[in-house]
């Protein structure tokens, strides 16, 4: 009897804790909605999303975030192009090729990269990377899309690498052995058997990595240059969504249109990461490898 009571107590205790964190998150979401809605009294959603000019403090002000969305998307895509191959190849190397001793050292190091504070990476981007790419590519300024993407890639690699490594590692060894038995080389086995078998895990890794890149604030604030224009080349400065919020929220007049517009940007950003996570969830569910027969 008494043990059952304790058990019930534990149950409801954990339920309350779970409820508390979910409610807190939910309330933040509600707050985001409530604070962003008033801006649409002044402009339509279409003007907001597709407006080309972001001049929030002018009179009359312009609240078009197309350039900001483009900036975010471009930076994320470019960082993906750098981080995805590097992350996946590192993962394959660690799980398949590296001798155990090397993997034991490299893996924690890669995971340590994830714990690097983003402000440090941003500072590094300004002080070291910017002058470097300025000189190498002979461009007028080093704070641009390329610099920010490079730094974001650096931050996304640990996520992509460690999740894909788990996926590759979990491929049943029977598959591998079957491939070897058929006379395939190690390389052929990796390309044709192991990567396809681990694909769902790798896709989840990629999407989570990219969603980290699109939501990252400090690095893009410091390294992307902050020009609210639609970029013409990868060496143009851009101003991604999170950087705009971070840079302007502190000085936006409380309760003004600008203030609400910044919350609306937050909502758009939330939409992006929400979709990313939804897709990651879907892929990992839909293409889950169950047993060895489904390849």
């Amino acid at each position, binding site marked *: 009897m008494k043990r059952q009571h304790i058990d019930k107590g534990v149950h409801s205790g954990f339920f309350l804790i779970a409820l508390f964190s979910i409610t807190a998150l939910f309330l933040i979401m509600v707050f985001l909605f409530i604070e962003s809605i008033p801006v649409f009294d002044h402009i339509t959603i279409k003007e907001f999303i597709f407006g080309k000019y972001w001049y929030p*403090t*002018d009179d009359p002000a312009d609240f078009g975030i197309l350039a900001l969305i483009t900036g975010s998307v471009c930076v994320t895509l470019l960082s993906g192009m750098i981080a995805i191959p590097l992350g996946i190849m590192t993962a394959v190397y660690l799980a398949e090729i590296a001798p155990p001793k090397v993997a034991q050292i490299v893996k924690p190091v890669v995971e340590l990269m994830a714990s690097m504070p983003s402000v440090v990476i941003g500072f590094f981007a300004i002080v070291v990377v910017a002058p470097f790419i300025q000189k190498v590519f002979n461009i*007028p300024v080093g*704070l641009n899309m390329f610099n920010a993407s490079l730094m974001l890639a650096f931050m996304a690699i640990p996520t992509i690498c460690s999740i894909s490594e788990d996926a590759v590692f979990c491929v049943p060894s029977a598959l591998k052995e079957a491939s070897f038995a058929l006379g395939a080389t190690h390389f052929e086995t990796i390309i044709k058997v192991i990567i396809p078998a681990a694909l769902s895990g790798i896709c989840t890794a990629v999407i989570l990595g990219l969603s980290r890149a699109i939501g990252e604030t400090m690095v893009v604030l410091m390294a992307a240059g902050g*020009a609210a224009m639609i970029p013409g080349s990868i060496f143009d*400065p851009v101003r991604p969504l999170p950087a705009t919020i971070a*840079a302007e929220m502190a000085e936006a*007049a409380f309760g003004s249109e600008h203030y609400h517009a910044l919350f609306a940007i937050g909502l758009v950003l939330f939409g992006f990461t929400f979709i990313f996570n939804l897709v990651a969830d879907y892929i990992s569910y839909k293409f889950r490898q169950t047993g060895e027969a489904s390849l």
Partner: protein
Amino acid sequence: MNRFAKLIFVLIISLLIASPEVFAGKLVIKGSTTVLPIAQKTAEAYMAQNPDVKISLSGGGSGNGIKAIIDGTTNIGNASRFIKTKEVNAANAKGVYPVPFRIALDAIVPVVNVKNKVSNLSMAQLKDIYLGKIKDWKELGGTPGKIVVISRDSSSGTFGVWKHLVMNKERVIPGALTVPSNGGVVQVVEKTPGAIGYVGLGYLTKELKAVKVEGVYGSRENTLNGSYPISRGLFMFTNGWPAGDTMGYISFILSKKGQKLVEQAGSIPLF
């Protein structure tokens, strides 16, 4: 009757004397990062003089300082710009009446890379650079090369003054790099040969080249005598006419001693 008047007089006097006791305790100051060094220096000195007063200081930007006054979460809100009409309306709607105190002056100086040969620009040239009409240094008599325009975030106090005084309310080109702080502008201009930016007078370093505006150096003397065209006032706002320690602190800043500290903090004292 006469005794009665005397009694009231004594009562008022004792209240006035006692009032610092009543209000003694915490003084909260928030707002502009430009005003922060001044607030820091003066707060330390004020606390040394009045050990029973505890001042808590934080930055956050001009908008936040004024917002904190409106919300009633601070005694003093710092701002590197004057209060906007919108903010006054928001304050009045909450029954708050912000009172401004100009505590110091600040000049905004256009800066270029040390390697740049251009040393004087007119207000019209500055405006055209920031409008994107002048794109190359050779148009200004410098070494040919693209001008990298560096501006501050559209909601910063420094940007507001720049826009008001230089841009004459016209828009800075979207392609201008925006940097979130004075220190950030210094960093970028130092490292970028073709860059032009603007910073508060206190942020000038040897690694930067200050450009004369209309032939006048941005300096303390030229700001005080009015010949330097790009200067601004730094403000502290209170809710209603201040009393107690808030009054004591503000009078301290406006005293000779306080203004000396303003100068030490890198801004221009009022007298």
